[in-house]
């Protein structure tokens, strides 16, 4: 057991820090042209992702030709710790980088990889993920969007919903039903669908936080023609990709989540210095102190749990233990925002976003942050689904 990284690892960190110092996007450029959705990649963001790719800092665990440097698992951990410290994300098409690119790498043919993988990593093409449907949320395998094979092409008809970034993405990594007779898990395939194809209708669907900002969309497919060569992996074996895709996302997600939560704890410490409704410093309120300390315990615990399970997670395997970190981390964030909001009293009701933006001077209102936390307790498998997974796959309780 060791509390600290060795010297070689710290040198790796220092090299990354120096590089980031030199190569981070210019604040003025970011503010002038902010990203408007999870697939809207402004020019500065594209150039930034390309710099990361060329320097081998985009996906350090991968080889140089895929934007990496064959970094060891411990180095990757340090990488994610450092990336959580800077105010910009690696990619402004996060699903493209963290879910679809790894799936392409694992399952796509060499020809598909040549066409899609490196261009995705270099932010030349952007993606949305076609999973959820009106009738298939937690029960994802119940999806109904049909793809009929006719000769060398599929005809796709159906509807996706809650599709992040669909309005700005070039392609959809789309889960479709290709065998309606088979048991539901065995009739699913994955198609790459060009979002400019005739027959696709994208309707924006603002989230609960703000009517003016929509990342979500409904996507309608009406006889959309998709060439057979766009089938990823074997026909009717797309389900394993669905599980695998999300696992990629979770391997190291806790690092940035823990860092984000630590930053929010600092915000709570600042809040403690402001007056509460009785005029005294909030920090003098015993209940507030207890709640903040409790959140601090949870955030530190999340980090310790991540480090403890790290060996297992490092290989990017679909470890069901990820569910523990996903469940715990997302629920801490929800509690944290609620503690801040309730501590503010009526002040918390002012949800004017003016002046807030990417790298803006102001933090978004706690009420909005609280509402936004449901993104993490619902997306990627709801907290209830995570509890089912923990009970059945980690603890071995019988399926209901």
């Amino acid at each position, binding site marked *: *057991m*060791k*509390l*600290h*990284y060795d010297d070689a*690892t710290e040198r790796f960190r220092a090299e990354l820090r120096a590089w980031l110092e030199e190569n981070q996007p210019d604040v003025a450029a970011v503010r002038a042209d902010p990203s408007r959705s999870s697939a809207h990649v402004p020019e500065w963001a594209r150039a930034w992702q390309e710099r990361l790719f060329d320097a081998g800092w985009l996906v350090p665990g991968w080889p140089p030709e895929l934007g990496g440097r064959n970094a060891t698992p*411990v180095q990757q*951990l340090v990488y994610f710790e450092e990336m959580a410290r800077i105010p910009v994300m690696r990619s402004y098409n996060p699903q493209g980088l963290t879910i679809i690119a790894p799936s392409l790498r694992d399952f796509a043919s060499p020809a598909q990889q040549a066409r899609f993988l490196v261009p995705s990593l270099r932010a030349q093409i952007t993606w949305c993920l076609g999973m959820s449907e009106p009738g298939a949320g937690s029960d994802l395998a119940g999806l109904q969007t049909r793809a009929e094979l006719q000769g060398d092409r599929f005809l796709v008809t159906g509807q996706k919903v809650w599709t992040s970034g669909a309005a700005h993405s070039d392609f959809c990594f789309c889960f479709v039903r290709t065998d309606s007779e088979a048991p539901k898990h065995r009739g699913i395939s994955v198609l790459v669908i060009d979002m400019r194809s005739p027959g696709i209708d994208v309707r924006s669907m603002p989230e609960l936080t703000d009517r003016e900002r929509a990342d979500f969309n409904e996507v309608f497919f009406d006889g959309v023609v998709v060439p057979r060569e766009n089938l990823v992996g074997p026909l009717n074996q797309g389900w394993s990709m669905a599980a695998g895709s999300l696992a990629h996302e979770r391997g190291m997600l806790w690092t940035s989540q823990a860092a984000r939560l630590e930053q929010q*704890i600092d915000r709570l*410490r600042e809040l*403690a210095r402001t007056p509460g409704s009785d005029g005294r410093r909030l*920090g003098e309120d*015993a209940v*507030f*102190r*207890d709640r*903040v*300390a*409790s959140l*601090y*315990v*949870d955030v*530190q*615990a*999340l980090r*310790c*749990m991540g*480090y*403890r399970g*790290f*060996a297992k997670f490092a290989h990017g395997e679909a470890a069901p233990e990820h569910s*523990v970190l996903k*469940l*715990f981390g997302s629920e801490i964030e929800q509690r944290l925002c609620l503690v801040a909001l309730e501590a503010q009293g009526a002040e918390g009701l002012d949800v004017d976003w003016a002046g807030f933006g990417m790298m803006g001077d102001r933090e978004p209102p706690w009420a909005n942050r609280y509402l936004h936390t449901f993104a993490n307790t619902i997306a990627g498998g709801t907290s*209830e689904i*995570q*509890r*089912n997974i*923990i*009970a*059945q796959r*980690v*603890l*071995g*309780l*019988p*399926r*209901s």
Partner: protein
Amino acid sequence: MDFEVSEEQEQLRASVADVLARECPPSLARARVEGGDAPVQPWRSAVELGWTGIALPEAWGGLGLSFEELGLVVEEHGRALAPGPFLATTTWFAPLVRETGDEVAGARWLAAVARGECTGSAAWGPDLAGRDAGVRARRDGDAWILEGTQRFVLDGDSADELAVAAQVEAGDGCALFLVPQQALKCQRVVSLDASRPLAHVGFDGVRVAPDRVLGEPGASRGVLARAREEASVALALETVGTCRTLFERVLEHARQRVQFGRPIGSFQAVQHKCADMFVQIEKARATAHFAMMVIAEDDPRRALAASLAKAAAGDCQRLVAKEAIQIHGGMGFTWESDVHLFARRAKTGDLLLGTAREHRARLAALLEL
């Protein structure tokens, strides 16, 4: 950065678990709770196998290992619901004596601990709420006279030696003394977990000779704080161990107990409770192991880590002890079931050395809220 135990540590842990599974079934704790005498085991095995001196220097007959190894042994003691003087002797008494840096006392008392010839405990001084006046000491020539009462001392009426924190009117106001059992006036507490015996300890003009004064009277507050941090982490580890075994019993029960024609573990209401218990256990275990490393490496985050671990262990037992009884249903409500024995031990672990809430208050101060 490596939170995994080493291969040698895992071998040690597994061998401790083996021995305790053999020598220390829950029936030992039950016998103690039901009024039996202090059991010979697992203390005898601990002495024979060197666990009593595991973290003590080899010069004193110890194994010269670190607090990590001691912590793993303590966690296994918690898993086995072990009764006996191991916890108080190795994680309360020994650190307090060792932290004074008094080589003479170390060579005498801690070598005796390593050999299994001396059991000990600690009287930590007034509690944070000031409910307890504690013990005062005054000079009498080159000796000292102790007056007062320390309440709720673990193994207070059975430990051979008690390391006592007393108030003095000099320096930082804190002094440490060693007092033998026969000089104490003890009143056994009818405690929630009688396999973890507590006593109110009276000092009725106890005269302490100079060779039983630890360190410099009036300069012991730092020593006391460091020893208490170590003891808190050990107690957190023990509580985590107890909760883990309790949770294993819950899972076994949920798989086997059939109602409405199905194992109750197949019901989502039960599954979700189990998932939440597992999260709390993982949380408490990870923070306790972090704190164990912090103590072993003497990292500057000691105070923070100790309170983190103790608070997380408190949160964990709160949920696990409650749901364990609840999920066991009518069976869990009987004296015959061992569930309540584990629940009593886990609760005791939270209430001693500062509850989760008290440690959160300390964290709030450390965070400068």
